């Protein structure tokens, strides 16, 4: 029986990939090397023996393979399940070798209309189409996008297959006129989708257009089909902040794209089961931002609210290391008590500085050991399948605890340790 729920349709759309090659022939991702398309021959001790289409036999160290590959080896190669837990965590986004050689600057601009302000230079990468307006150069952000993609593919079982051969469109708009023109164009596009509801959505979207540094944008079907894109694009309003886009892992772009990729993988969630979605995506985004960029510049709240608190000293919000230190103190003194259920009810408007940093600690904790990373990947799959965030007791169980209190105790221990940075 064909049954659907509406909340899914208007949620962040799940990625739907194209067809892939044979089930046995798959892409293997090693920590530093290039991706390899090959079939598994067998597991030999600490190595996986593969055969490429040429055919050529190659041997890869299991330790260097992605969590996804190791799951495959356990399932189809009869490998010992301990390989899921024993490999070092690493930072797959940073460990990967140079991947810019495959980038291709396109001759034709992306044209969204006749107005020259809506003509964008385009750079094609394996999984993204990065288009620019203004003097901004796309290559660093494109590399960051590919590296974040690789991190997701390294850890999340369905990510590569769900993505398929589509590309995600990323706008880098430096020029204010172009950003305004894009806002007008998007408003008109939303209005064409029909109905009073969409007219209201269009008006509100345009009103808030200039406020956000990054925003998601639904694309017209014809463009999606013509260029093989996902239905949603990510738009960066760069303005005077071009500096953040000059490094591979600029803090804000890293935060925004990490959030976008995780949301895409988890898909939309039903509005009756979305408590915790904000904490999971926001925590993950801050974790990636601070881990990769070594600092944060993403503000969700007004830092000036807490002038007398350590946490809100000017550098405190700029420097991820200080976040951890300050939260550790507050948890030690009992000023902050991590509680899953309460945190899951928070929305952006409710956030205090310590609340935000607690969410960061949660995102960090979830991915802080190989065991937890494994559980986090399972949590993401659960959300993808069920279109709902598991209740706290179920999250605790995914992480190997019997109760939410046990989970919270372990999380507190993590915050109090020097592993939380």
């Amino acid at each position, binding site marked *: *029986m*064909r049954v659907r729920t509406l909340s899914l349709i208007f949620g962040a759309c799940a990625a739907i990939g194209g067809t892939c*090659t044979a089930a*046995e022939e798959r892409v293997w991702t090693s920590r530093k090397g290039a991706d390899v398309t090959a079939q598994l021959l067998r597991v030999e001790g600490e190595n996986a023996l593969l055969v490429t289409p040429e055919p050529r036999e190659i041997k890869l160290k299991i330790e260097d393979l992605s969590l996804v590959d190791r799951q495959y080896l356990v399932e189809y190669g009869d490998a010992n399940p301990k390989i899921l837990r024993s490999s070092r965590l690493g930072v797959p986004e940073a460990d990967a070798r140079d991947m810019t050689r495959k980038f291709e600057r396109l001759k034709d601009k992306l044209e969204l209309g006749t107005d020259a302000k809506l003509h964008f230079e385009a750079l094609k990468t394996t999984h993204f189409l990065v288009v620019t307006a203004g003097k901004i150069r796309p290559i660093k952000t494109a590399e960051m996008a590919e590296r974040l993609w690789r991190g997701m593919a390294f850890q999340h079982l369905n990510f590569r297959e769900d993505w398929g051969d589509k590309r995600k469109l990323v706008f880098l708009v430096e020029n204010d006129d172009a950003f305004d023109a894009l806002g007008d164009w998007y408003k008109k596009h939303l209005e064409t989708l029909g109905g009073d509801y969409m007219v209201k959505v269009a008006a509100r979207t345009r009103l808030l257009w200039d406020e956000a540094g990054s925003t998601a944008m639904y694309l017209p*079907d014809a463009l999606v089909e013509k260029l093989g894109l996902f239905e949603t694009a990510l738009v960066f309003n760069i303005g005077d902040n071009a500096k953040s886009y000059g490094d591979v892992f600029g803090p804000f772009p890293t935060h925004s794209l990490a959030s976008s990729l995780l949301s895409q993988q988890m898909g939309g969630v039903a509005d009756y089961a979305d408590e915790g979605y904000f904490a999971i995506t926001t925590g993950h985004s801050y974790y990636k931002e601070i881990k990769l960029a070594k600092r944060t510049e993403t503000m969700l709240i007004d830092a000036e609210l807490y002038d007398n608190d350590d946490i809100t000293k000017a550098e405190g919000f700029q420097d991820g290391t200080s976040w951890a230190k300050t939260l550790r103190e507050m948890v030690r003194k009992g000023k902050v008590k991590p509680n899953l259920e309460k945190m899951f009810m928070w929305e952006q408007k409710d956030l205090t500085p310590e609340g935000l940093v607690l969410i960061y600690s949660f995102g960090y904790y979830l991915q802080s050991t190989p065991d937890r990373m494994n559980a986090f990947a399972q949590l993401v799959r659960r959300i993808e399948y069920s279109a709902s965030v*598991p209740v706290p007791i179920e999250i605790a*169980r995914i992480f190997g605890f019997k109760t939410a209190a046990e989970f919270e105790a372990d999380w507190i221990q993590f915050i109090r340790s020097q592993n939380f940075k």
Partner: protein
Amino acid sequence: MKHTRKLTKMGLALVGAFLAGTAGITADQGAGYRTFTNIKGKTIEAIIVSKSATSVTLEVKGREKPFKLPLESLSKGDREFIENWDQTKAMFLRQCRTLTVRELLELRGYESFKFEFAHNSIIVPGLLNGKKARFLIDTGAHSTVLHDAFAKEASCKVGPMTEVIAGVAGTAPAGWAEVPTIQLGETLLKDRRILATDLTNGMPEGVKIKEDAIFGAEFLSQLDAVISYRERLIFLRPDLGDSSEVKGLKDAEDKDKKLAFRLFKLKDKTTIRGRIVKKTPTGVTIEVVDEKERSFTVDRFDPDDALFIRRWSKDAVNFEKNCRNLTVKDLLNLRGYQSFDTERIGNHIYVDGKLNGNKVKFMVDTGADGSLFNVEGAQQNECEIGPMDQWVYGIGGRAPAAVTKFATLAVGDTLLANRRILSANLGKGEESVGIYGGDFMRELDAVITYREMRLFLRQK
């Protein structure tokens, strides 16, 4: 360790002889981890590596090195199990664990299709009257249904909308469409009359549907379909369609034997069924279904099949031949799946389970993105039901629904706890407590086999 590998190879050579004189081999003969209990009641999960008259060597889950235990330290049941354990069989089964469902079924004449998920719905590309179409694979649809606008685009004659079809949200008008052909890979269905309706009916403005047609249970049943969520594959038997595209297959005298042959696809879009007799570095000789041998250069084949040929060896053939004696059930049991008999009522499939500890029936429905209870059934089984302030969409438009919490839902040993799904009025005569949908089946790596009418699930 080297010694063990040598034994494995030898084991394979011996297995051929062993199977030749044996009706079959079952999966419970010691290939996977098993719980052993000692006389003090302590349990461990382990695989037997070897045994002697007085001891057994076990590989314990999570421990690197095997260790030896005296038999007398183990429970009576374990000692009996060890006495019946056969090293050759166990090695063979461990080898078979690495087979995929695809490898097993392709040895049986099935064709596989990679499918895409649209959320949890299964979408397979094909052709309808020669036009590219996206089919939603729907075990919960009694019959196949076309989207009326697509039927017209595909030049099908659609009659007056005087028929009525029913779905989750009530009824909808439908008309008979004449469909000359439906083609999924090599499988061809010809000259069918299929109901067409507006599949966008009741959907909110701006929402696009992902499918052009719903591929229903009558065709899945006819074609002995197998659906594997984990591998994202659906398998069909082209020879059970209305006409096979594979030359000579229908005329083959010994059909079972012919079905043991494999489909090979060439780059020129032709397909042959046969088996490899010999190969050189660049060429291959294939015995095709009409018994003749034909030679090809390897680069004439589609990449998948070219790779299959390049990897082909006589040893591998012997192994696969022996593995052919395994059933899908055997293979999946080796992989830690549980299998369940299903009950067929009309074209619908039902499986027994428990909801909050009470015995119930679920309808197995790949067409449902999310599982859904019948409100009445949810009430009877102590679920916590909220107000009817949600909507579900399907044939018939939209219907009100309520957020429903349950403590436990079990099918066999698989357990889903503390979940929130929706309930709607599915009707008083509904056989089941509700729909076991794509969400649960993806989570539990479900496999559905129409020929055996079984559902396989596993909880990792």
